[in-house]
């Protein structure tokens, strides 16, 4: 069965953060817009209602809001000569599913990259010489600068009501903020969150060592906020069920709390749920898209939906998958280094040190997703890559987001994993430990990429996407450097005991434990159609009416959580579409 629906001006694939931003920006132009979301509809009430959503097993452990591998997954291998296996159960990352996407169940840590991260290759070549870049490292410039993007970060942060403390306003360093950040035009919309005990202890120790602690920027509202769309946030109550859960309290910035009710009021906007886009349809000459084909779960039929403009907003992984399936951009070939779609897949290099303090009550359940004090003294723009022998950097942070017991209770080294010793350990140590984490860059490499799997298919018969990714010595050296810095701070705090967990030499990628949902690259932006999949406005080089949003645009991973940049890029692309593309459709570059 199949049907063809009336044409729209715009079809948006996915209604998460980027789909919602692009939806409301284009709706205000009066365009007829249809957003297609593969998952169910979700609203604060009833889906995130207290107390039902405070169920660690259902949402924190069984991933009630995330994509089900049964319906959508990838295959993974570490090297080109390994046979990729399907990710049968979720682990390493947790893509969203349903209206709001991962924007409902993120933590809300909302950053801007450092200035040099947008032009990493040029920066390294200028400062340290081209020979500082290992041969297999395929880092590139983004084709935009921090200065160009500043107004779009500002827009995203004010829309989302971010709580934080500026460190650099138009070049003036502000006490208490991040002195190393790129200049911003004004302060955050809301003051920083209150801090937890661990964050305060860390900040004190870091200050004692001459570092510059500042509050982690948070999409958890510290006070009431009304944004440009008239949407309102209430103050976060530190519920301790932030990441992996929808917010009970209208406090976490999400498509639901910041955009969707305003968007749904536009008569020219509509959306369909349980509608998974299967491919982007191209005109016979391949030069434009004619629309998309999707699977209507309720009607159990394929639907052809034509549109003048196709926006891919399906999250990094699914955007790249759809591009590969639809012939958007030449698939990347790691052997020749040619092709662009699927190129430069990257991830995030993190590690941490846990400390135990018998006499401190950390009350870890009194946490919020983005609480914390951070330092950027070892950021990517503070390190002498020549002297240290790696390219990269990290922010270092302490801040407790939750104390949910199934997700893990830190126990001192040597405590058994089960039996009487484990039971005694949880009684003694729950609430008496804290961690200092490193959240670090992960660069791009010739062999790390995304393509179509030759063996495994999804429920629609489409090949799964195959991920080839492993940790590389450069990034392991970076994280080992951070380990040394963090252990110094940890020791200065005099814990009863402490232990570290950082990737060491020879570490291999393990898809089982959760790491981050910061998958990047594969639809990278740039200035050259031979080396990037989309131009600096996120427009596909080969099909001018296709725009690809999300962290797929990052040519290598930044040292920060991605969504600040993802949101800013969505506003940046929206401006280009509204002001330049709509009056004169065609390539913007």
């Amino acid at each position, binding site marked *: 069965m199949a049907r063809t629906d009336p044409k729209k001006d715009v079809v948006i694939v996915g209604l998460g953060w980027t789909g919602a931003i692009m939806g409301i920006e284009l709706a205000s132009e009066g365009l007829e817009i249809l957003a297609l979301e593969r998952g169910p509809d979700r609203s604060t009430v009833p889906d995130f209602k*207290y107390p039902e959503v405070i169920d660690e097993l259902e949402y924190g452990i069984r991933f009630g809001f995330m994509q089900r591998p049964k319906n959508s997954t990838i295959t993974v291998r570490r090297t080109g000569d390994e046979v990729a*296996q399907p990710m049968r159960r979720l682990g390493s990352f947790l893509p969203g599913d349903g209206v709001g996407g991962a924007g409902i169940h993120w933590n809300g840590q909302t950053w801007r990259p450092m200035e040099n991260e947008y032009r990493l290759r040029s920066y390294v070549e200028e400062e340290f010489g081209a020979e500082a870049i290992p041969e297999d490292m395929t880092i590139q410039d983004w084709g935009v600068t921090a200065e160009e993007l500043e107004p779009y970060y500002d827009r995203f942060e004010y829309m989302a009501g971010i709580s934080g403390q500026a460190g650099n306003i138009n070049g003036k360093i502000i006490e208490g903020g991040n002195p190393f950040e790129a200049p911003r035009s004004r302060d955050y919309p809301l003051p920083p969150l209150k801090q937890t005990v661990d964050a*305060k202890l860390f900040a004190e120790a870091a200050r004692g060592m001459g570092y510059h602690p500042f509050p982690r920027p948070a999409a958890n509202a510290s006070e009431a906020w009304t944004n440009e769309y008239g949407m309102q946030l209430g103050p976060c109550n530190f519920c301790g069920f932030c990441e992996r859960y929808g917010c009970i309290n209208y406090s976490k910035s999400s498509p639901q709390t910041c955009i969707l009710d305003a968007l749904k009021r536009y008569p020219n906007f509509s959306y369909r749920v349980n509608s998974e886009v299967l491919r982007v349809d191209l005109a016979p000459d391949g030069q434009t898209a004619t629309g998309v084909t999707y699977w209507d779960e309720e009607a159990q039929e394929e639907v052809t939906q034509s549109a003048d403009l196709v926006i891919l907003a399906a999250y990094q992984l699914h955007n790249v998958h759809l591009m590969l399936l639809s012939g958007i951009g030449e698939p990347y070939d790691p052997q020749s280094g040619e092709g662009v779609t699927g190129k430069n897949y990257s991830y995030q290099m993190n590690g941490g040190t846990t400390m135990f303090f018998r006499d401190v009550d950390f009350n870890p359940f009194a946490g919020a997703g983005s609480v914390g004090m951070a330092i950027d003294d070892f950021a990517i723009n503070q390190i002498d890559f020549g002297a240290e022998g790696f390219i990269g950097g990290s922010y270092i942070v302490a801040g407790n987001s939750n104390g949910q017991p199934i997700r893990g209770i830190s126990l001192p080294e040597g405590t058994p994993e089960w039996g009487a010793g484990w*039971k005694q350990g949880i*009684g003694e140590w729950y609430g008496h430990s804290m961690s200092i984490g490193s959240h670090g860059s992960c660069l791009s490499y010739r062999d790390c990429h995304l393509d179509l799997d030759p*063996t495994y298919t999804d429920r629609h018969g489409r090949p799964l996407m195959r991920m080839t990714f492993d940790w590389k010595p450069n990034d392991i050296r970076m994280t080992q450097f951070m380990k040394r810095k963090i252990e110094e701070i940890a020791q200065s705090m005099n814990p009863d005991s402490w232990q570290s967990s950082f990737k060491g030499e020879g570490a291999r990628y393990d898809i089982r434990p959760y790491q981050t949902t910061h998958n990047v690259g594969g639809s990278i932006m740039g200035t050259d159609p031979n080396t990037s999949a989309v131009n600096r406005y996120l427009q596909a080089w080969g099909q001018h009416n296709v725009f690809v949003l999300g962290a797929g645009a990052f040519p290598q991973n930044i040292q920060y959580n991605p969504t600040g940049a993802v949101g800013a890029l969505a506003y940046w692309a929206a401006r280009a579409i509204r002001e330049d593309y709509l009056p004169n459709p065609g390539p913007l570059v």
Partner: protein
Amino acid sequence: MTPKFLQTSRRAFLGGSAAAAALSALSEPALAQRNQPTLDQYEPVYLTAAEWAFVMAAVARIIPSDGDGPGAIEARVPVFIDRQLAGDFGAASDLYMEGPFAPEADMNLGTQSPLTPAEIYRQGIAAFDAWCRSEQGAALGDLDPDAQDAALQALADDEVGLKPELREFWTLLLQNTKEGYFADPRHGGNAGMQAWVYIGFPGARANFHEWAGRDEAYPLGPVDIAGERA
């Protein structure tokens, strides 16, 4: 009426470091409302009698009853596991279960078994109990506690010769036991929120604005999703 399994555990509790909180955990009204069958009256939905005996024995060693805090038995973890295996979790209803399968693939690539968690328990229990019989002379449930611990350690160390399809058995058993201990009581375990009381987790209170940043012990016991207080 206080269920039998709680009566026996009460003594251990009162000696515990969380004695004050534990007292309130056992307040009569909360227990009266629960009105659940004792573990020996419970009729498993998925597990057979032999499998139930195995689970009872295994979880009792993974989280033993002696010492401070409830054990897995007092927390009714076996009920939780049985219900999980009978439901979506046991049926792998969220997992990608298309072949070909390479169960011996590198562990880092995640589970590659063609079996559902419920099937892994079924075959895993049979295979491991057979190992216990041949190595120790009896099924796990019939061994003494020290021998049970040694057998479970061998299982944890992957030394009992399970086929690759069953490689996840111990990981699942350990994880599910901890889940049943700590999950909201609506899922069948963590009876009376005793595990939360023991560690000092306030459950579904989810409102701590004035507690953020205070280095003092939190004074209130837990509530659960049903609105019960411990």
